[in-house]
């Protein structure tokens, strides 16, 4: 694991220097936040809408970083033989994977922080109520979706294909899982479909932590399970 911190720092810098990645992870969610908050108001439960929008968009950011940006970076690196050059060094594939994941999750942390800052200053954001619960849910969400992103990055043939596959997985998922519109406002049919996506447990757990409810152990276990299975598959499928 030598040099891990170094690789993470450099990969994060590279992601922030990439205009596409920076736009997707930082500016795009902020635009959606603004669109969602144009009417303001409360949810049927009486919850101010900002207290649902910021946590669910934080999962949206995780999804963008891990399902869209991460696989594209990995596939581009393979296509351009960046990975092959790394393979001729003592750096291990586990380290390269770990560093890619960590750098993209730090990108998501930055994106989430942007949302929270806008929320606090523009829309009187109060939460999260249960900070450790929210952080745990966020990290598990990042682990599970990040592992799926690594798997896509390991399987797709090219950088272009990675972007197509990533967006095709990401967009339907954010709509049905409640990362784009609050779950309670979705039609029942959409919600029950969304519950089968790997993003749904992340949305539920992060929002539960935000509002101070205990997250269900099942959602946390599902995320841990997805992480273990998808990351093992990604390591197995990995090509330099």
């Amino acid at each position, binding site marked *: 694991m030598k040099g891990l911190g*170094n690789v993470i720092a450099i990969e994060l810098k590279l992601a922030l220097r*990439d205009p596409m990645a920076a736009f997707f992870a930082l500016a795009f969610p902020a635009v959606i936040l603004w669109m969602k908050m144009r009417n303001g108001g409360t949810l049927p439960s009486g919850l101010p809408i900002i207290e649902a929008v910021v946590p669910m968009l934080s999962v949206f950011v995780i999804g963008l970083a891990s399902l869209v940006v991460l696989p594209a970076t990995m596939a581009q690196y393979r296509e351009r*033989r960046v990975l*092959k050059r790394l393979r*001729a*060094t*003592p750096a291990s594939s586990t380290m390269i994977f770990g560093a890619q994941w960590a750098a993209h999750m730090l990108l998501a942390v930055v994106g989430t922080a942007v949302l929270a800052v806008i929320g606090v200053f523009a829309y009187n954001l109060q939460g999260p109520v249960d900070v450790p619960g929210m952080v745990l849910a966020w990290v598990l969400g990042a682990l599970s979706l990040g592992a799926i992103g690594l798997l896509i990055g390991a399987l797709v043939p090219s950088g272009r294909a990675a972007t197509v596959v990533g967006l095709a997985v990401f967009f339907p998922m954010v709509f049905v899982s409640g990362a784009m519109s609050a779950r309670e406002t979705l039609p029942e049919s959409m919600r029950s479909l969304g519950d089968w996506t790997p993003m749904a447990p992340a949305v539920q757990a992060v929002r539960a932590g935000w509002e101070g409810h205990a997250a269900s152990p099942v959602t946390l276990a599902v995320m841990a399970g997805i992480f273990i299975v998808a990351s093992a598959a990604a390591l197995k499928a990995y090509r330099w």
Partner: protein
Amino acid sequence: MTVIEINGLQKSYKTHRVLEDVTLKVEKGEIFGILGPNGAGKTTAVECMSGLRKPDGGTLRVLGLDPQTQRAELLQRIGTQLQEAALPDAIKVAEALRLYASFYDEPADWRALMDEWGLTEKRRARFGSLSGGWKQRLFIALALVGNPEVVFLDELTTGLDPAARRMTWGLIRDMRDRGVTVVLVTHFMDEAEALCDRIAIIDRGQVVHEGTPGELISKGHTNSLDDAYFALTERTVS
């Protein structure tokens, strides 16, 4: 002292046999050239030596290590410049050197290396903005950043203008003068003649001739390595 010892190396891709039977020895501190036409198996042979490919048959020792079973140890002690390898476009020269240095247990001082190879003026330049000559210079520095005992250079000067090629030759001689063993894959005869202490000509997956440039020239009864190469491989210029 023998640094690389290869006996009867074989490698096939699916049904296509690339390496038929490669046998050669590389001695410590020499620049060893591997010459041959495109598709002769030069790159495959070097990739086997640096642990990037698994041979199908034969024995192979680099610094006394098996590149397959002792890969981790070997990678700490060798440096590689791959054909058409790249770095992310947005990475800066100094970042790349520091990053690669961090992979090794006992790296060279990357700042000193950057200075020695004339890269300091470009330290803040992004990889994507460098010209071919600067990219190659960076690749050589990256191949050396782990303080290697053996360096593999695969078609280092392909695509460089004549001035950049000359400069690169000087850099490779400097490398040898510091005691590093250099394995150089090339298809430029003038390059092999100017640089190499010994040369192996590989054709159709076998070493067909081996010797110093002078030995190969007299073996071919010609005046230059270029003529000798065609005389020895019985190839005609079409």
